[in-house]
């Protein structure tokens, strides 16, 4: 029974992989890539002529059996990391990736510092003998 299920499973997954429409893959790729003419649009969204040509390239290469990595590398070779909406992590982009976390850590550190300072300010120093007598007298008068 188990073997049968496994066989069925393997068959189903293989079947669905083979039938996966490349349209979806093409669309996903095009959404990850930036159109350089109208820079705030992806290849999928842009009507620029260059975007059209590049979409043609993506489609042709998907059909030719290239992997996503190969297609992305093809475009990066020509247009640079800028075609990627998600830039790779390297020395030149380290600040971009790490920067927000550094700022966050700085903010948290500053907040902790301020809170600690405030707490130590709130803790009143213990009363001296003179003050204690005064306080007792005032309380006793009530």
């Amino acid at each position: 029974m188990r073997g049968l299920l496994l066989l069925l499973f393997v068959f189903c997954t293989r079947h669905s992989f083979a039938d996966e429409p490349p349209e979806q893959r093409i669309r996903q790729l095009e959404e990850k890539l930036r159109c350089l003419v109208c820079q705030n649009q992806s290849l999928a969204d842009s009507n620029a002529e260059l975007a059209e040509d590049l979409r043609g390239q993506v489609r042709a290469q998907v059909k030719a059996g290239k992997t996503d990595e190969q297609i992305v590398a093809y475009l990066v070779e020509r247009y640079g990391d800028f075609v990627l909406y998600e830039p790779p992590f390297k020395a030149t982009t380290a600040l971009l990736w790490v920067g927000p976390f550094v700022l966050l850590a700085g903010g948290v550190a500053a907040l902790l510092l301020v809170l600690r300072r405030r707490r130590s300010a709130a803790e009143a120093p213990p009363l001296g003998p003179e003050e204690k007598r005064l306080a007792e007298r005032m309380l006793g008068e009530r």
Partner: protein
Amino acid sequence: MIRFLAPLAIFLAVVGFLYVGLGRDPREVPSPLIGKPAPAFELPVLAQPDKRFGPVDMKGKVWLLNVWASWCVTCREEHPVLVQLAGKRVIPVVGLNYKDKDEPAQAWLKQFGNPYDFSVVDADGRIGIDYGVYGVPETYLIDGEGVIRYKQIGALTSALLEQKVLPLARTLQK
């Protein structure tokens, strides 16, 4: 004291970043092709369809590859600068007629003057993609080894030519 100086320093840093950021032209994307061999091609020469040209034919020469099209408005603006440059005969200039039709392209050259040694025809823009072209006009300075040394996106101006392109070309020609 530091209570006042720290926010001031942060503020100034932010202003500095924004100032530099705003001063930059977002259309100028650094080309990954600089320092790399110019992509090979073999394209028909405009108006001489039986002739073909490729970057290998320029081996040993420092030359400019200028991407242009008759439909490109900025090319029209750049054109006089190229004509003037051509008159000086200091560097070969090859045109890459990008996604254009032969007839209007030839008419354009006839009307405004032809600054190119010759132009090659990239009708479907495939070679343009290999060169990372996204905003015509673009100009590539290619050295004797066939390596791209400089790329100008958008129109060349005489100032750019005199201050950047030609001095670089002269050092490469040596």
